[in-house]
């Protein structure tokens, strides 16, 4: 069988190895007597590097040898391969968000007063990171707690033009009207609510 060009053997080996290979290891892929020199292998690596100039992959020397890797600028697309399935938000987070929406500007202490339980820092952090709430000032009381309010992004996400498009509490309490208006199956919604973890529900 004819021997393919060295650079294609090197390429195939680097891709199949799934990790870095040393030049010596590449040389040992050949039978004794047919082994390329180190220079040959370096030349092949260099040529491959040039072949890849325009492409989404690159050849690089790292501590344990040479490897072919996907360029960083391809990360945007490639990273989606490993998307994690989104989890669901906890009941505690949703209640906190709802209170910020309806009672803004509101401090954490005030949210805790209504909910009757502590609001964990991670919930506030998640809401801030998602750009759904922001700090709009500090209340002038001891400790100067931050006051939270909802953002434009919050309105956009829920497809609202303004907060007053949210139903009032009175409307919310009128279950029958709500069911008709929002068209959600109340029994199932109730059942779902029961499935929610209630660990931090002090009440």
């Amino acid at each position, binding site marked *: 069988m004819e021997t393919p060009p060295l650079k294609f053997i090197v390429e195939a080996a680097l891709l199949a190895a799934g990790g870095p290979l040393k030049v010596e290891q590449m040389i040992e892929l050949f039978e004794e007597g047919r082994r390329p020199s180190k220079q040959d292998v370096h030349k092949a690596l260099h040529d491959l590097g040039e072949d890849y100039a325009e492409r989404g992959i690159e050849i690089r020397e790292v501590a344990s040898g040479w490897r072919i890797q996907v360029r960083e600028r391809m990360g945007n697309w490639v990273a989606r391969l490993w998307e994690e399935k989104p989890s669901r938000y906890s009941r505690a987070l949703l209640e906190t968000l709802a209170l910020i929406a309806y009672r803004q500007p509101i401090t954490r202490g005030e949210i805790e007063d*209504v909910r009757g339980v502590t609001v964990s820092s991670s919930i506030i952090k998640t809401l801030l990171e998602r750009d759904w709430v922001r700090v709009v000032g500090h209340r002038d009381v001891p400790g100067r707690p931050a006051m939270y309010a909802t953002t434009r992004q919050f309105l956009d996400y829920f497809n609202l033009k303004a907060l007053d498009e949210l139903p009032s509490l009175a409307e919310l309490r009128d279950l029958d009207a709500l069911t008709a208006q929002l068209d959600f199956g109340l029994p199932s919604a109730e059942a779902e609510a029961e499935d929610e973890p209630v660990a931090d529900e002090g009440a």
Partner: protein
Amino acid sequence: MSEAQRQATTTDAAETTPELHPDVVHMNPHEEHPRQAEMPFAIVQGAPVTQIPQDLYIPPDALEVFLEAFEGPLDLLLYLIKRQNLDILDIPIADITRQYMSYIELMKDLRLELAGEYLLMAAVLAEIKSRMLLPRPPSEEGEEEDPRAELVRRLQEYERFKKAAADIDDLPRVGRDIHLVGTELAERKVLRLQPQVDLQELLLAFRDVMSRADMFSSHQVEREPLSVRERMSQVLSLLRPGNFTPFETLFDPAEGRPGAVVTFLAVLELLKETLIDLVQNEPFAPIHVKAAG
């Protein structure tokens, strides 16, 4: 049997039982033509043995290997047929049965554990043989089926899957013939998707938390338009800590009268909650707004 044929069958057999030189299993005691000048069929104490020993001693180990080389009685029968270049559709039943039985007897003599299937096949062969020897009564439907038909069908069926198994074995296979590739990412990021929230969920959460809150405070009468609440947040976010903001910049003329009213209510509410301070140095001077504290 010509030499060419013999070679052909030998090759055939070698394919069938790669673990074994075919001659090792060629131990028919009735063999009348020991093969000369062929490959030694065994090496005994370093010396090649080319003649079938008269006393037919077969080391039990070899027989075990022999037995293991076959995937059951059908495979053994196929081997016997192939070895003699016979057409599967025209098996000399008496011959094959005799050969088959001699193997079985040998195995029994050596007390090898013989799978029941081999004995069952022996019975089947004997039955076919007897049917072929007996004169056949005239059949009502004219032609009677060849007693070998069922066996031939099974042999053929087995043979095609034996071939299919070899074909599958010949397919390019991951890890043997083809290799999968994989690369590292320059920087591996895992996209963590954000959970989706339905507005209904949010509303239900609010309704529920407020119902619970009712149990703590019996007189929670609040009916504030949300637009004022929203505007309160907006006004607050306009204020820079420590800086004075001109009062009129809080109003957007484009919003018209209702907008101005909402902003004014928001400012009053913020004042009431002491979240902002209003500063006016003298009557009719510009009013400035400042975050409280």
